[in-house]
């Protein structure tokens, strides 16, 4: 009854606003982006700006400069389409852009070296991970202020919210556990160990003490029932049941999996294993590795389109393709020689990939069906990542 009452009030307010909006409107000149899903956002690390490219025309419709020496890392649009945000790694600040006017409207101090970020499903909370500060900054998108810094992480990278928004899961690349945040209180309430560090590690502590490659992300399945977290040093993927926040299975994959990516049909997940230059395709129904296939060096991302998986090999200049029906290699696309491929997003129709290529300051648009591609040059200096609202492949390094 309470929910019904709230619904009535909200619906009434919106209807009233619709009526009032007829008399109060922004001028047309102020609105630069009418449809937030119509653009590809490109984060340019060295020109310190966010570019907005129209998906249909491939023309730039806007560019927002963030400041000098900001080095934005990842860009994301809020689920309600109101804001575009990014963390400035060198500036230790979060930048809030109005998605409609493409104006920088707020700069908020966060912790050290902000990189990856996420929004709660209701767009209320913007969680900014600060890997060098070992913390998560909580930004209230109503007041546009940082309301809390949650400490206690170890190089936190990606944050994923549960579908009901009550919990957030944080991959700690500097450890072997996934942090669970109670979103109501914005507190770290649990650490879920993905897998045990093998006892034999005592014999080779240099490997473990030199540099740690832990968990990049706890990625949810499409139905939100499970989370999959790959651990680089341990070479495993832990399957977490978020209802009880416990690990229900540990799946061994190749060496040094970078992270895990979910296929759009919900059947498979892929880990690019940079330690042995393979990919492991995990059958999500059976929770088993269905195929291990050769890939390239320095893989930074996996996208899905037209029934295929596209694996980005950063330093080789190749994008490797795999048929997700037969689970066999389907060729590779040579993007260029001496180029550095970064990360990509896929459009909401699962047809095209938008791949950032930092050497020539371009975005490479790959047709998922044919493998043909075109380049859009001069998108900004050192394009580092791309993002499309509601894409299923929005990720960063």
């Amino acid at each position, binding site marked *: 009854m309470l929910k019904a009452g709230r619904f009535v009030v909200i619906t009434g307010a919106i209807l009233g606003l619709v*009526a*009032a909006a007829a*008399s109060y409107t922004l001028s047309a000149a102020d609105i630069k982006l009418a449809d937030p899903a119509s653009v590809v956002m490109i984060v340019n690390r060295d020109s310190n700006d966010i570019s907005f490219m129209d998906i249909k025309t491939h023309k730039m419709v806007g560019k927002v400069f963030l400041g000098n020496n*900001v080095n934005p890392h990842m860009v994301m649009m809020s689920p309600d389409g109101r804001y575009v945000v990014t963390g400035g790694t060198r500036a230790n600040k979060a930048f809030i852009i109005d998605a409609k006017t493409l104006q920088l409207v707020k700069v908020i101090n966060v912790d050290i070296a902000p990189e990856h970020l996420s929004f709660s499903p209701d767009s209320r909370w913007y969680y900014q991970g600060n890997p060098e500060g070992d913390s998560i900054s909580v930004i209230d998108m109503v007041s546009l202020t940082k309301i809390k810094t949650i400490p206690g992480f170890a190089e936190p990278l990606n944050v994923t919210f549960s579908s009901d928004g009550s919990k957030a899961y944080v991959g700690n690349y500097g450890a072997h556990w996934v942090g669970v945040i109670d979103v109501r209180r914005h507190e770290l309430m649990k650490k879920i160990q993905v897998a045990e*560090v093998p006892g034999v590690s005592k014999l080779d502590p240099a490997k473990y*003490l*030199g540099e740690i490659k832990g968990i990049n992300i706890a990625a949810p399945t499409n139905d939100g029932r499970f989370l999959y977290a790959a651990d680089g040093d341990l070479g495993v993927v832990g399957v977490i049941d978020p209802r009880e926040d416990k690990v229900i299975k540990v799946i061994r994959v190749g060496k040094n999996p970078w992270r895990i990516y979910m296929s759009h049909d919900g059947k498979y997940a892929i880990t690019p294993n940079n330690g042995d230059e393979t990919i492991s395709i995990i059958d999500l129904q059976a929770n088993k590795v269905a195929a291990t296939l050769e890939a390239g060096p320095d893989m930074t991302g996996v996208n899905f389109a037209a029934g295929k998986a596209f694996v980005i090999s950063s330093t080789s200049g190749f994008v490797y393709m795999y048929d997700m029906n037969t689970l066999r290699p389907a060729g590779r696309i040579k993007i260029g020689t001496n180029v550095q491929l970064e990360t990509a997003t896929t459009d909401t129709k699962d047809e095209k990939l938008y791949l950032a290529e930092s050497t020539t300051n371009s975005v490479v648009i790959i047709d998922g069906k044919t493998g043909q591609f075109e380049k859009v040059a001069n998108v900004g200096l050192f394009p580092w990542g791309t993002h499309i609202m509601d894409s299923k492949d929005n990720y960063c390094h």
Partner: protein
Amino acid sequence: MQRFRVGVASVVVLLTAVAAAAQTSSVSGKVTNKEGAVVANATVSLVPPPSAMASMPGMRPGATDISVQSGADGTFQFDKIPAGQFILQVDAPGQSRSSQQITVPTTQALAISLEPLEVPGAEASPTAAGAAAAAPTVDALLERIRTLEQRLTEFESTTVLSEPETRVKRIEIWVDKDGNQYDHQVAGSKREVTYERERAYRRQTINEKIEQALSDEKDRNVGIGVDATTVTQFAGRTTGDQALANKNAYALASADLFFTAKLAQHTIFFADVVALSGSPPDRQIPTLTLLNGYTARLVNQNELNLREAWLRTEFFGQRLALVAGRLDLTNYFDHNAAANDETTQFLADALVNNPTLGLSSNGTGFATVFDPKNGFNFKFGIQQSNPDADNLSDSIYSLAEAGYVARPPGLGEGNYRVWYRWDNSAESRANAVGISLDQRLFPRLTVFARVGSAEVLDGHDRFYSAGVQIQNGLVFNPLDSWGIGYAQINPFSGRNEKLFEGYYNFRLTERLRLSFNLERVLDSAEGDQPKFGYFLPGVRLQASF
């Protein structure tokens, strides 16, 4: 029926919503900047809260936003606003967006204070009104000083002078059956070890960092060491037939290549490849023990020989060590701090080893060392004594030793060892027992002694040695050392041999040593062997790196 109910409910909800929308009121307020000056032409918007947008899927963002501009006096007003929750946003050039949730109806006029938008690396561009307000009044300057002090405080509290260091540490955690990890023990959890990155604000000089990096690099690589030695000796016969081996010069050059690699924690691989050439005095002077300890390594002239190749690993907190491979078992037994190394101490083998140990060749075997870290230590080893034997069981040479590190009152550290060996390769019983001790009497002076008795057919061979080593004083250079020793071997056959040696070892550099030594050996007759005696002065030049 179900559809009918839903339809009725929807109509009721819609009508109620429309009724709620019909109850409208106004929202008004004033916009100022940080300095208190009014901000004209600010864009003031009312937008639905995020939760409302989430409940209206498909609603295009901004479709329901309404906006007005603030007037010249900074005031604004919205009329006919329905009751409910809204976000009030205020934007002005050069200012950060002000955003707050409000509930309509509201009776109070809203006071909006805008903060400057601080873009990194760019100076804030004040508005005309702001610039007027920022005229250098005393209040403005005081406010500016307060702001700067606040920034300084924040800066000092969030930064350190040294660069933070990222390192990975080994930690103990407790994990329950669900995989939940805790920093402390909880019911049903078990202790585990894991690794976690931490950032430490530790002051470390650049030199320390470089040294640490080099040390880490060294640990990862195969280490190669070289020990090159040239020993030149002269023999002057003092007793016996002067025509035999008299006034001769001898020289022996030795080069050892050591390879070490750290394979795992507390596990190393070691190999020693040696090549020798030259003529030691032992080829002409028939002493019972070697006058030049290097001679034992000389297998063939100018040939490389693998002396040792073994793997050593340690268990139980480094209390138990196991060495296996091709090894020289006597390296692990019958140690002596003052008389154990022909490369830096005495040259004569009788003052390096105990002849009653009775092993002259290296072979396959293993050695275990148990050191409970309480002063005692225990060793046991087995080695193939005869490389030509067809099987190991016919040529087992085994040694056991118990040692104790003593610190007698008023004295320095002393090592006391007793060993027992058994060798089945000889036709007769070949048991032996021996003692080796070294005791530091003063910081400069260490005394040593060895005693041994080996079973032979119908009797025992006996051996004694003793001497002193001086270091840390009474030397030309601070790191020099010198020693005097005496050894005597009394075989059951009746022949006796007495040997004196003195040496002085100049440590020229970290890697270069020069030693002068003088040996005096006296050999009594046995059967038809003549009695003989020699003086053997010598020079040893050693480079080790």
